[in-house]
């Protein structure tokens, strides 16, 4: 079993970080060695690095920019990121910053990623309730911009449609057509539709490839 890499990209606020954290935890529970790379040099708030202690407690290695979680507004990456490409096995999640702006940081690693023995998976996370990507055409436009900036190709789509704390099962069911249409337009597989764990039983059997997720990214008062 060789090294495997999941790259998580998408529009701002589509839920990339929460999805990345869930993937990392899931793989860890399967007994894998897991690294998570916070590649977001755009957004100083609500990011993977904010959950460093939680992840470390769960046995996951976190690689984040030196500036993350500080008041330093310096978009610089750490050389530690290169270590994930030297690993011969294990599993790495790369949580990319939003849009093409965030994905440009990924571009500098594109050659290394393409040179890995196992093909990479690049997942484009979508959320129907995000105003700028609420139509499949708009989502695809942003996906193409991300691909151009990262010099990598998206390999699958995850439907992470949600309305934060007030998400209902109906909301998720109502996003399925959008997700299918987006995947079709992209010519890519719809890998999964996520749902907060508490809605999973309600949606069981009604959603193809349902992926229950824990809501980890929260506001301080929730």
């Amino acid at each position: 079993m060789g090294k495997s890499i999941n790259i998580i990209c998408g529009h701002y606020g589509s839920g990339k970080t929460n999805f990345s954290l869930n993937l990392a935890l899931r793989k860890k529970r399967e007994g894998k060695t897991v690294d998570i790379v916070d590649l977001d040099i755009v957004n100083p708030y609500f990011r993977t690095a904010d959950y460093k202690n939680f992840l470390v407690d769960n046995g996951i290695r976190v690689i984040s920019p030196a500036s993350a979680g500080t008041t330093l507004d310096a978009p610089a990456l750490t050389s530690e990121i290169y270590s994930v490409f030297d690993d011969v096995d294990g599993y790495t999640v790369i949580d990319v910053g939003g849009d093409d702006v965030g994905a440009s940081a990924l571009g500098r690693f594109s050659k290394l990623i393409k040179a890995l023995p196992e093909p990479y998976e690049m997942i484009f996370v979508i959320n129907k309730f995000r105003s700028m990507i609420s139509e499949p055409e708009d989502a695809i436009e942003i996906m193409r911009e991300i691909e151009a900036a990262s010099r990598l190709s998206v390999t699958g789509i995850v439907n992470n449609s949600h309305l934060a704390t007030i998400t209902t099962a109906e909301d998720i069911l109502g996003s399925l057509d959008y997700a299918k249409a987006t995947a079709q337009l992209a010519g890519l597989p719809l890998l999964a539709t996520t749902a907060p764990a508490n809605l999973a039983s309600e949606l069981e059997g009604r959603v193809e490839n349902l992926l229950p997720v824990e809501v980890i990214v929260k506001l301080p008062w929730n």
Partner: protein
Amino acid sequence: MVFFMAERVLMKGNEALAEAAIRAGCRNFFGYPITPQTELAAYMAKRMPKIGGTYLQAESEIAAINMVLGAASAGVRAMTSSSSPGVSLKTEGISYMAGSDLPALIINVQRGGPGLGGIQPSQSDYWQATRAPGHGDLHVLVFAPSSVQEMVDLVSKAYDLADNYRMPAMILADGMLGQMMEPVVLSDESDKPLPKKEWAACGHNNERKHNIINSLYLTASELERLVKERFERYKVIEEKEPMFENYCTDDAEYIVVAYGATSRIAKAAVKEARSEGIKVGLVRPITLWPFPKKAMAAAAENAKAFLCVEMSMGQMIDDVKLAINCKCPVGFFGHTGGVIPTPAEVLEEIKKMAKA
């Protein structure tokens, strides 16, 4: 992009402010990037060209606010946004607009200060917004939303009041509100007619006398007359326009005062304290100027103590003390520099206040 109407969407505070301004009729945005408000400008950059509006990234914050002054002079709804250090640079232009009786909307998504400070959320520009948003005898309307939905609602309100009273308005948000995502419903205001501005300098076509937009008055008595006239308007505003929210105040013996993102934290703490039997309530100012003095005084009638919770060193305390005429002690709990108070910490302070 399809224009959704009365449909729930998930938006970042900064984006919601931008979209709300567009829906309120703003077609002229002038800005300069600064964390943590940059998404607002980025959103405007994407949207404005699609709707025939103007997005302009100026060479500096000072240039941007003066472009707002120019656009407002022509009678259109204009807007600029920044974060604390950038707003300091804008204060000259804000004063010129107040002195020229120009309505416009200024957004401050506050970060830690003073100086360059940090990029994490803060409320340490309260004094600047309510006391000295520029030089001279002046006020600006100051709105303090506490949710993404309220950011949307208050943008429209701020434009209406700014036009009505012919003065600049400010949305005083913070990095937390600007960056966080919440579901919002955006209303369609495209049919709402914008107020006529007879005073605007937008070309007289030889049909009327020319209008002059100016803040320079070299005759002392003339300047005094104009300032006094403005302060008569401020009196009306102080009487008519204060906004606030009361939460669990009816039988409250202890009152927490907090605004913006901090009020969400304080509310969570008040809720928890109530479940433990402490008679505590929250008064949340929604307008910081005009300050909701009557609401504070009413809450003070049966209160034993007040507690101000802020992301600053306690800039609102004096306003609370004045509003309640120092009827009972006003304590303070807060963090500054970008540190966010937790509900548990506020609960601890409420317990201390109730024991004292």
